[in-house]
């Protein structure tokens, strides 16, 4: 599903590479918990998998597709078609309604639009199963609580059943109770769509819900060395 080999990445303007990963992989429908200290390159790795950044060296193969072989345009399309992202906070466009935020994923990908069937119905079904009251659907996203926003972000990541879900500390803005509820929802939805899930967090207490735990320092030779 995801294969990294001998990947080296350096942020523009920085001397030392931020990532040097010999090997990393993610199997189909696998749920992986990725953790590591701040600055160890977790978010950077997600940028590479999403094809937003290109490595200086190495191979990144996603769903059998070597990302290096794709032009920027095709990489963007590939990301839209196959990967759903959830970030720590501010995932939504505040001036769009809840529903439109979810549907945004289908606007950029015809594949996900098709896989969603009736996109609007799919969005409503997802929102409902993520415990979003219908009265909120037409509200601007700016009016939601942080927990609600994260659930809308999850619905957007899930719509159109992308093969890969990537969540970058999606729960760190939530309180402990809501963290668990959110992870439960995310995991069950991922299971329902048979998506692989790459979940990033430094909160090791959450790790037990996942199939496999990966420590950033273990895969990134540069972890901790990059200047913070």
């Amino acid at each position, binding site marked *: 599903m995801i294969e990294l080999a001998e990947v080296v990445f350096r942020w523009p303007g920085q001397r030392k590479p931020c990532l040097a990963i010999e090997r990393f992989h993610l199997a189909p429908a696998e749920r992986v918990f990725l953790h590591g200290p701040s600055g160890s390159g977790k978010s950077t790795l997600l940028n590479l998998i999403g094809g937003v950044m290109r490595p200086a060296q190495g191979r990144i193969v996603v769903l059998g597709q070597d990302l290096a072989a794709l032009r920027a345009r095709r990489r963007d399309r590939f990301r839209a078609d196959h990967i759903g*992202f959830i970030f720590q906070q501010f*995932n939504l466009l505040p*001036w769009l309604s809840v529903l439109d935020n979810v549907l945004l994923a289908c606007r950029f990908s015809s594949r996900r639009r098709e896989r969603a069937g009736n996109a609007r119905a799919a969005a409503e079904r997802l929102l409902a199963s993520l415990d979003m009251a219908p009265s909120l659907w037409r509200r601007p996203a700016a009016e939601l609580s942080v927990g609600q926003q994260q659930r809308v972000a999850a619905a957007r990541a899930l719509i159109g059943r992308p093969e890969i879900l990537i969540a970058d500390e999606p729960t760190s803005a939530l309180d402990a109770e809501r963290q668990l509820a959110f992870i439960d929802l995310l995991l069950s939805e991922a299971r329902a769509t048979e998506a692989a899930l790459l979940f990033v967090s430094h909160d090791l207490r959450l790790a037990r819900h996942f199939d496999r735990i990966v420590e950033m320092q273990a895969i990134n030779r540069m972890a901790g060395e990059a200047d913070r």
Partner: protein
Amino acid sequence: MKALFALAFKSAWARRFLLTITLVAIALATSLLLAIERVRLDARTSFTQAVSGVDLVVGARGGALELMLNAVFHAGGSSHTIRWDSFEAWRRHPAVAWAVPVSLGDAYRGFPVVGTTPDYFRHLHHGDKKPLTFAAGRSFAGDLDSVFEAVVGHTVASQLGLRTGERITLSHGMTELSPLHADKPFTIVGILAPTGTPMDRAVFVSLEAISAIHLDWVAGAPTPGLSIPAELVRKFDLAPKTITAFYLGLHQRADVFRLQRAIHSYVQEPLLAVLPGVALDELWSLLTQVETTLLTLSALVVVVGLAGLSATMLASLESRRRELAILRSLGAGAPEILLLLATEGMIVTAAGILAGLVLLALALIPLAPLAHGYGIHLSWRPPAASEWMILGAIFLSGILSSLVPGLRALRMTLVDGLTPRS
């Protein structure tokens, strides 16, 4: 594409207060530029239309422009006169179809008085060869029984609220403070329909009337102790001795240069014959520099407005880092980001242009009567070709100036990736 437009619109709408300020700046700049262009265009058509159908304007030798300004636009100081005999001689020339004399120098409350013959209303045209018509009444009779009859142009009538049958007192000279011909009032017998030419601002009387009101005048002032009552003027010889100029219409336009040469070599009196079109071209070339300066200045105002657009959009980028990163994560690439920003620039510019057109239409309401006073017929109408070009140029420049924030946004998304660090 449509989705991106909707996104751009909603995003811009969320920042509408800031963007409205730039929109207003663009609107003001657009209407300023358009107003200048419109006055320029409409002044040209108005002036050109004022001499429609006249093949030659003949007056005393001097500057061609001076003659035109004087004889056609009734502007400029009193110029030299020519002898009536000269007019009589040239009207009988075989190439000449019609001839109309004009005598200028008097005024009615700031409006020029044109002494002429009833032929004036038959032969002079306006606009696209449209004949003159009367909104009310008729031409002055032009005979000795009814010397003190006057026809007024449309603007004169509407501005002073005149109707047929009313009596008016002319003054000697063009300024409001000129001495009055108070002893010889005129009766308004006709009001011309609007023409959009200087004729709208004129008062027309017969040449005999001009002679009559000056009977007891010498060297521009009433002769002390001498006053000839209006009833008695018929006893005097009112036949005109001098006129300011005359208009000629030819049977064959092709004869115009030949006739012009002939008039120039008229030995009895030094005359000047002017082809109105040629003289107007001369006028335009004189005005071009002024116009270019004005247009350049207002184009600079547009540039300032668009620079404001650029600056506003640039300033808002910092707070939109998150928005752009979200779009990136959803699959938006460089083209979409550029397009998003360009669309925003396009929306603001287009709205600014529309608002500018509305402003222009509103500005024309008070401006049109003002310009009409100068013989310029300003009106609301859809933009002319050159105005479309201006609008198109503003529109394109608006999109271009949004490329500056667009490129900046691209750079930002490149260094930010999915996780902006602010």
